[in-house]
């Protein structure tokens, strides 16, 4: 009797059910999402509170609109761009005000760290913690660990965005501020491809290197670098040609102009390519604990 036949007999005799290959991926996604539940709430509420305060401060700002617009106009253009206040921004409009205060500046820079941290922890972090050997002792293909973590993080990100959207739109309605639900949805949804892009980059770094710190530091540096290049590229000639190579250039300002779906799809596709590269890389390397 061959080893394979022996194994088949052994498995069947002990009542193991037929295993579905995609079942492991679904199980991984559910498992990882559950582990991220607390983070979803913490990130969603933290960023949501920021937006809530921004919305709550809008009526006071509205009253001082001319003073504020004059003040902003007096800033050097480079500084305005760095803080996400583009040319023609009218801070008396809630959409422009939210764009300048959060959606063009703080929200993408902060929220991108959620998928970066999650993806860095999925491979390199699991190696450092020592959890990966037990997990991969199960019949899980390595690519499914990468894909499952990424899908779970992308779903968790949607959860955070829902909380963020509610914390933005509900106070506006309660305070009788004219903020449409469509603008709110587009503003928060537009954060998704940008954040998944950095999640994909962190996943690739996590697959390439065995150290979680590197898988956080490299995408973190790329994130900040891209932001500066895009922001300053509006006013600094030397950086203008580099802007299209940053995700922030394609991210634009959905709350003011709506989602640019080609950019949305393009950034998502690049994120998926990064994850594919991560899966290929991780499948071909040693696992250290």
């Amino acid at each position, binding site marked *: 009797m061959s080893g*394979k036949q022996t194994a088949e007999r052994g*498995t069947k005799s002990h009542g193991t059910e037929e295993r579905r290959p995609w079942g492991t991926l679904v199980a991984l996604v559910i498992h990882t999402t559950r*582990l991220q539940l607390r983070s979803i709430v913490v990130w969603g509420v933290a960023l949501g509170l920021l937006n809530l305060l921004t919305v709550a401060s809008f009526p006071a700002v509205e009253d001082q609109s001319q003073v504020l617009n004059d003040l902003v106009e007096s800033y050097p253009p480079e500084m305005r761009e760095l803080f996400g206040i583009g040319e023609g921004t009218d801070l008396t409009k809630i959409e422009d005000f939210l764009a300048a205060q959060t959606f063009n500046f703080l929200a993408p820079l902060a929220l991108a760290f959620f998928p970066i941290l999650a993806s860095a922890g999925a491979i390199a972090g699991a190696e450092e913690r020592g959890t990966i*050997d037990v997990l*991969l002792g199960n*019949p899980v293909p390595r690519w499914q660990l990468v894909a499952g973590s990424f899908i779970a993080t992308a779903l968790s990100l949607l959860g955070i965005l829902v909380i963020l959207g509610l914390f933005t739109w509900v106070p506006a309605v309660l305070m009788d501020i004219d903020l449409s639900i469509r603008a709110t949805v587009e503003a928060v949804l537009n954060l998704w491809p940008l954040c998944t892009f950095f999640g994909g980059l962190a996943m690739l770094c996590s697959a390439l290197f065995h150290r979680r710190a590197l898988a956080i530091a490299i995408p973190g540096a790329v994130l900040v670098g891209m932001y500066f290049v895009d922001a300053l590229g509006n006013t600094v000639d030397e950086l203008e040609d580099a802007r299209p190579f940053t995700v922030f250039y394609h991210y634009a300002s959905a709350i003011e102009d709506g989602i640019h779906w080609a950019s949305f799809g393009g950034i998502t596709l690049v994120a998926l390519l990064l994850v594919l590269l991560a899966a290929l890389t991780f499948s071909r390397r040693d696992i250290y604990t």
Partner: protein
Amino acid sequence: MSAVIRTEGLSKTYGRRSRGIEDVNLRVDEGEVFGFLGPNGAGKTTTTRTLLNFLRPTGGRAEVFGMDTRRESVAIRTLVGNLPGEFALEDRMTGERLLRFFARLRGVGDLRYAYELAERLGADLKRPMRRLSRGNKQKIGLVQAMFHRPPLLILDEPTGGLDPLVQEEFLEIIGETKAEGRTVFFSSHNLAEVERACDRVGIIRAGRLVAVETTDTLLNKSFRHVSLTFDEPVDPEPFQKLPGVGELSADGTSLTFTLYGNLDEVVKLAARGRLINMEYERPSLEEVFLAYYGDHENGGSS
């Protein structure tokens, strides 16, 4: 009898300087309990992690159930229960949630055996991992390796951190596993454990498999540390002359020596005096290695 594990010239090196394992040729047959022994850093963990495709071999090949460990790793892991030597479990998860997750990954619907194992080993499935001691985490590690009744168990230092009663229960379970015709491959540096559980042992040292023997053969090669205390000063010379006695030292009423032969003559000679204490110790496995395989190489990866 078919081979469950077979390696041919299996080698794994880490860069230029760090040695892992070299030219390991090993065969473990169906239904046997095979002890994989060696001091720390000998290459036990490197071998087991290479079998599971966590590490890619730099030379040679390995098969488990006739399947190549590189190309058919997922299929192999369907048939293997694995307890890593160094591992951690998700801090916030309870043992029960972890087992349910692993059961879903393996398509196991019935967790009765998992609960039975947990009860027998005294594993606490209700508390989150961060609140468990090392021993309790080890118990849950054992349960997750065994609950699906795999045809092959690969266990790396399975009794580390367990108290003696739980170790005893673990060895009972290994006996039952063998009785069901399943195969166990476990690495250890605990000679007593190996003596109890294993049919055959492979000894790895400095990355090379230096011997594969039946457990009886290994133990017969072994020696004992003997310490005798009498109620009055004792003449060491008659003990010195006994066959198999070496490294003898005398200190008034006490004698300490290493016995390579039969204990019977030592006991008879000691009985001529008034013996108030006798200690008879099994050597550490490391000492057995030093005695039988020399001490020409050191260190390495684990």
